[in-house]
């Protein structure tokens, strides 16, 4: 077993993992932070997206042992300090950017990472950035609107490319 320490949502955590332990399993099963979802387990769907040292990663495709010393943020760490939703979370609610909600944690994490890199993305840039996050319900349009709103831009009637 390998002993690891990291910071998750601002709190120091530690645990013992096998070499093969996936980061998402450490997050869900050891830390009991089950907001991060496992959709495909094959690096395709993006439901398990979290932030690793500020960058979006699919936590089903990162080894926990590789994250020793890292700074991690999950969906549980997104709300504001007073418990209110982050602007991205609020925008997903306001613009009905979810239906079943399974992909939503990953969508919010991916979209939040986009705005940190590019505060006012175009519609095309939003769609390009979310290519790794699959949603089977919404058809994406309302997700795109939510990201436009969260970035303080006009929400245009969007259509598929």
């Amino acid at each position, binding site marked *: 077993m*390998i002993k690891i320490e990291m910071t998750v949502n601002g709190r120091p955590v530690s645990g013992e993992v*096998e*070499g*093969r332990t996936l980061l998402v399993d450490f997050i869900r099963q050891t830390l009991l932070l089950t907001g991060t979802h496992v959709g495909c*387990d*094959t*690096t395709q769907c*993006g439901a398990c*997206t979290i932030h*690793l040292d500020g*960058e*979006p*990663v*699919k936590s089903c*495709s*990162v*080894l926990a*042992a*590789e994250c*020793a010393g890292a700074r991690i943020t999950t969906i549980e760490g997104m709300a504001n300090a007073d418990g209110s939703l982050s602007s991205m979370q609020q925008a997903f609610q306001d613009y009905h950017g979810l239906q079943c909600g399974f992909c939503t944690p990953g969508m919010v994490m*991916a979209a939040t*990472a*986009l705005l940190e890199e590019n505060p006012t993305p175009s519609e095309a840039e939003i769609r390009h*950035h979310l*290519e*790794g*996050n699959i949603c089977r319900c919404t058809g994406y349009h309302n997700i795109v609107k939510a990201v436009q709103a969260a970035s303080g831009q006009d929400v245009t009637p969007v259509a598929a490319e």
Partner: protein
Amino acid sequence: MYDFDFERPTTIQDAVEALKAEEAIAFSGGQTLMPTMKQRLAMPSKVVSLTAIDEMKGVRLDGTSLWIGGATTHATVKRELAESYPAMSSLAGRIGDPSVRSRGTIGGSVANNDPSACYPAGTLASKGVIVTDRREIPADEFFQGMFMTALEEGEIVTAVKMQVPERAHYAKFIQPASRFPLTAVYVAKFDDGVRVAVTGASEMGVFRWTEAEEALSSGFDAGAIDGLATPDGADMISDLHGSGDYRAHLVKVMTKRAVAAA
């Protein structure tokens, strides 16, 4: 995944030592290797992560000579080369998706030499040289076929060197399910000639389309290759996404698009 020993050395020397173990494998981001291991198509006894080796990270530019550390992620290359080598930045920014680009590395990509990967084409077109823990290998000799390279057992890609061309563009016809190229062409114009590297098409992996290089070297214009025959479709990958002849056709189309956009 089957369990394995895990090591995360912080120097190249320690990584080379760690890789001397029986059935040890280098792990440089793991965006291909981890899904492969989950499917049990790879069952290493030991995984040696290269992501904590600082001397293998970063992008350095000296004139037109570019050095990219082997453990540098696609996201970093995209960011660092945005001004100095936009075509390579664009290539890096179109690999996979943002999460893959946060973890995947150039060293891992060239060492794996997937026949549809992006970096082998960019590296080959940009007069690349693969730097390892023991030698330097020109890209023309490094890429040897589908998933085949000149790497020896336990040899680590520590950096990739390139030359920044006068003009370049990477034209990628995407396979939308995998986001790998169905066929893609990297065109680079240097003062002493043009290089055209093709990925996603050949059964032998990345290759240079020399007929197009000659035609474009005498006139860098998309029309310069109009008269050329497409490469032989019989040598091309044929699968449910496209026949060999279709890919051969795409080689010419994407070359023209790359030249027009360069």
